[in-house]
């Protein structure tokens, strides 16, 4: 997966970058299945590998698809990236070991959900039960966000294109 991302950084042809991104999403979905996150894997595969790629390609169809040569220096961003990476790595000291069932993360709310979801909602898929019933407000907010994004895109893209592009936008 790191090789895929490295290829994505170095490529200049944007279509190739997008296809590599789709490959990356598929690999991520496979890893997610290994990590027992089957719902997330299905969503990541459908959204990341399918829909994201299609949308970016459709957008690239409207603008040029090649990236011109960069003229900025890369030293400062590299240094910033390395420093931030090291700080985050230092933060992972406190994170639990892989697969440990005794960590605080597994203690408080999750055992309650796992023990009671079937009895209280008759739905065996705990993720769906939590998403739609125990945390229903969050899903309502998420649906509203999708709705807002759709409205936003429709508002931005449904007018006719101006013929002279160099005037200041006055609509």
């Amino acid at each position, binding site marked *: 997966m790191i090789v895929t991302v490295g290829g994505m950084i170095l490529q200049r042809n944007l279509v190739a970058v997008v296809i590599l991104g789709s490959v990356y999403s598929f690999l991520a979905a496979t890893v997610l299945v290994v990590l027992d996150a*089957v719902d997330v894997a299905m969503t990541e595969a459908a*959204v990341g590998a399918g*829909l994201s790629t299609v949308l970016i390609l459709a957008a690239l169809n409207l603008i040029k698809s090649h990236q011109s040569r960069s003229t900025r220096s890369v030293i400062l961003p590299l240094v910033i990236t390395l420093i931030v990476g090291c700080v985050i790595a230092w933060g992972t000291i406190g994170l639990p070991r892989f697969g440990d069932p005794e960590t605080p993360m597994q203690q408080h709310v999750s055992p309650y959900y796992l023990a009671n979801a079937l009895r209280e909602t008759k739905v065996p898929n705990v993720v*769906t039960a939590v998403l739609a019933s125990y945390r229903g407000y969050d*899903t309502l907010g998420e*649906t509203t966000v999708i709705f807002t994004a*759709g409205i936003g895109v429709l508002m931005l893209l449904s007018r006719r294109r101006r013929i002279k592009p160099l005037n200041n936008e006055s609509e």
Partner: protein
Amino acid sequence: MKQNPIIRIIVKLLVPFIVLFALYVQLHGDLGPGGGFQAGVIMAGVVVIYSLIFGSTAAEKLISFSIIRSLIPIGVLIYVGVGLFSLIKGNNYLDYSALHAEAAVGQHMGIFVVELAVFVTVFATMTAIFYAFVERQRQNEEDPE
């Protein structure tokens, strides 16, 4: 791509299976992985692939743009409506136990309706966004150059 007969035949054969798969994922969200989001995206993928192969005019004859545009808020309305229904019956907002005499069955029904609402909104939004991009391309080509 419109001229290649192999792709056209295969896509025509595949489309009903993909629709079936999307409905399967939606309705089996309780028993296995799945649910509204995945199913909505897969269904939107059906419209996308049909539009890619057969052109956007053919896709618009399949499902028209104005229907999709009016479907977007309906999902949100269903979701909010379920919550208000619980409120009217005297329970908390979005407390599904008010939907049926037995609390667990009420929860199950509530989850089903909510997943349906999510499916409708996700499908309509993703399809509408794709249509908007394609429409822009068509407008660019039709403008007097």
